[in-house]
């Protein structure tokens, strides 16, 4: 399974990851459109991104959420009815939505663009042994 490994102790809160993510997927540099977020929690960084646990798959009423060949949870927009239940039911609050761009939710798909943009190695795209 492809998943982002977080090394929070290395994070300097530069938010280059958020910028790279939103530019890659929405062609716009906006924190509100990033699938990964970095927040300052009492001076410590708090990185929030999907860990591909798949709890959302069980919640979706149209089976629009499914794992791809890499074990990454994907939103199939052709099946999605924009009910956003996956957003409210995500255990780590990592499913995103933004009504200015689209009604369907969006999430980290382990593309690794943020990891490449990270100057300190706080993010790494790993392939874990579990295939599902």
């Amino acid at each position, binding site marked *: 399974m492809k998943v982002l490994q977080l090394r929070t102790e290395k994070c300097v809160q530069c938010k280059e990851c958020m910028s790279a993510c939103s530019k890659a997927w929405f062609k716009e540099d906006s924190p509100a459109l990033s699938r990964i977020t970095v927040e300052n929690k009492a001076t410590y960084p708090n990185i929030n991104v999907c860990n591909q646990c798949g709890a959302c798959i069980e919640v979706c009423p*149209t089976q629009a959420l499914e794992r791809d060949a890499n074990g990454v949870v994907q939103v199939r927009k052709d099946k999605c*009815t924009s*009910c*956003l*239940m996956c957003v*409210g039911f995500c255990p780590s609050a990592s499913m995103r939505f933004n009504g200015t761009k689209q*009604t369907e939710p969006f999430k980290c798909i382990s593309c690794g663009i943020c990891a490449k943009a990270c100057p300190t190695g706080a993010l790494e795209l790993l392939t874990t042994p579990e295939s599902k």
Partner: protein
Amino acid sequence: MDMKEMKLLSEWSYEPAKIHRGYARETLYVGLGNKDGNYKFEKRPVSDDMIEKFTGGRGFGLKLLWDAVTEKTKWDDPENELVIAGGPFCGITQYPGTGKSYTVFLSPATKQTYNSNAGGYFGPFLKFSGFDALEIQGKADRPVVVFIDGDNYKVQIFESTLEDNNAYYISEELHDYFAKDEQDKRTISVISTGMAAKTSYIVGLNFSFYDVRRKAVRLKQAGRGGGGTVLSDKNVVAIVVKRTKFTGAENDPVDIEAIMKAGVSLHKRIHDHDNEQCKMRSVGTAHLTEIMDDYELLPVNNYKFGSHKDINNISSDEYAKLFSQGMADGCWYGCSLACARL
């Protein structure tokens, strides 16, 4: 599927209205004649005044019924109508409860105007097909199926070939009949009633949807007032609607972002607290049993008492052991309360 092909009796095509701010601003009238096979179809406009005064599903139903009948009309007269209407929120996918639509009719049970609502997909699909309401008037000369094809913008009346009057049988067969394949079954909703409607004044209406997880047709009820008896009296076996495509903003709301935020906020609270509070997702309205017992509201011994010492035998915990299948049973999209059971 073992249903024979149905003969087309009448057909009508229409230009669909586009939904703006929750209203299509058109309603559909289907006349079945007076046992003479004289079918009639009409689009009727919805005025600003009608929206201002009557607002939503129940109001539209009352207005259309009022216009259709006189003070002398009886429930089994041909001019009695079965009106089905969703309000401006009907079909919104982002938060719970928006699959509901209202049925309004002169009731065989009370001989008065009656309304009863149901979930399922019929109301949203009717709206997405371009209609704020559906009026069915008259009586067919033979058992018919009314089909609103919201994909091809046609209304068709078929002679029913259904061999059984059971609501589950009717719904399952018609989902099969009008769907191209398994995936397509969720684009259909069927309104039907059961065989008891032939002999009783109190029989309800069933509104269907296709559950993709269970791979089964599920029924929700507009159970009060005898709407099923009215449908049966009109010789209508079923009303079917089909609508494949719709977006998350099909109702064209003023502020979709606000709706999305409100929806997510509700979903989050239901996710966090439902299992401790109402248990709607795990046991549905069965959780009321304990609450009604605690508050002395159960009709024990015909309301002589309000609670019972053996309540634990019928509590929601017992219910969950016997019936719950370990998954939430949704209804219309976005209803994270998912109170439908069985």
